[in-house]
């Protein structure tokens, strides 16, 4: 599904060129659960942003379903990102003046989805993420783990084919972290492709393949 060839990301400041990613070749099959590990500054988040079409490579090719993403216009990238990718971040990014229900509903308001179907999708997500009893609460009335569950539920409500997770359990205690990882595993079992960036060996164990980045290179 995903094929990177010779992907490089560099920044020029004055006369100095800094490389964040160097000559990355990577294939990710549909339904995979891939973990990206490496020290801070190794290029993990940049790689995830490029995969998620929030950033573009300086050089190299990116094919998604055989389509040359590296040649896409910005508008097309935006559309592609929206339809294929669900991003989960370390911090929750819920909207504090909207209820849990409303937060989950927001991505659906921008698609041509009937109110009744929207309601059904939100209800299903609330159920799957064990948030039914919390639906009328505001984010500040939830624990950190519950907030992250709501954020994950929102990222996934449009049923993306790929989940990109950047340290998704970084702000959670171990029990809450396990819960989130369990949900990724469940979604993956249902056919969703998952790529996670993590420092945690325990989280990496949920994936079936791990790659290591160092100074922008994939380690053999």
């Amino acid at each position, binding site marked *: 599904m995903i094929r990177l060839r010779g992907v490089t990301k560099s920044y020029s400041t004055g006369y100095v060129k800094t490389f964040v990613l160097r000559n990355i070749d990577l294939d990710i099959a549909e339904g995979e659960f891939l973990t990206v590990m490496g020290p801070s500054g190794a290029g993990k988040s940049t790689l995830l942003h490029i995969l998620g079409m*929030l950033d573009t490579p300086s050089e190299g090719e990116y094919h998604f379903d055989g389509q040359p993403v590296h040649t896409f216009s*910005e508008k097309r990238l*935006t559309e592609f990102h929206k339809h294929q990718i669900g*991003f989960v971040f370390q911090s929750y*990014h819920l*909207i*504090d003046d909207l209820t849990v229900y409303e937060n989950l509903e927001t*991505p659906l308001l921008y698609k041509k989805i009937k109110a009744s179907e929207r309601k059904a999708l939100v209800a299903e997500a609330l159920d799957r993420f064990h948030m039914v009893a919390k639906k009328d609460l*505001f984010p*500040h009335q939830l624990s950190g783990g519950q907030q992250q569950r709501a954020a994950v539920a929102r990222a996934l409500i449009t049923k993306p084919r790929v989940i990109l997770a950047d340290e998704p359990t970084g702000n959670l205690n171990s029990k809450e972290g396990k819960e989130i990882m369990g949900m990724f595993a469940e979604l993956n079992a249902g056919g969703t492709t998952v790529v996670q960036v993590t420092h945690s060996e325990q989280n990496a164990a949920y994936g079936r393949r791990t790659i290591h980045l160092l100074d922008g290179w994939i380690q053999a």
Partner: protein
Amino acid sequence: MLIQTKNLKKIYTTEEVETTALNAIDLTIDQGEYVAIMGPSGCGKSTLLNIIGLIDNPSSGEYMFLGKNVADSSERKRAGLRKANIGFIFQSFNLIDELTVFENVELPLLYLGTSAGERKKRVNEVLENMALMPRKNHFPQQLSGGQQQRVAVARAVVARPKLILADEPTGNLDSTHGEEVMSLLGELHAGGTAIIMVTHSQAYAEYSQRIIYLFDGQIVSENIQKKFKL
């Protein structure tokens, strides 16, 4: 009068302990006023802001918003008042990562049932004002912190609320971008919008007309600015 509270209390009860987050708050804020709330961490600032913003309930006391007693209103009623009258700005920007800049700003208008044509016009207008037009199709993660907070301010004002509530709006910004947000708030105030801002920064608090100091859930002093900056 925009807001009046009388003997407002907020008490959190867990199995063993009762914590008083707010105690006997009497506060009146006029339409168009610019008020800063200061005090140490845990003094109740954010709780007070959440209650004023109708996203939390007081345990007891009176809260009049635009002349209506809302202390015990149903969530549906409060939501109606909130969405029509209040814009929120938070320290952590509160943008939705799955939505573009345009869509994030559009959100409050969707909840108000504004027509598609009017929405487009209003969102473009506010993006233009905030110099965000070149970014309108970007996602929040593609923007700097300063730009993200500008988007958040744009979202807070797009529905032309009577009141802006800002909880540490400059807390995650460097001083240049902090100043930028403060001057945006100053302009909104000059245009007639009431602003209540929680801040740790004495310098930023002095942009307001009145500073309220909270300590242990109580208002301990008020300082009316002789000459407020704009």
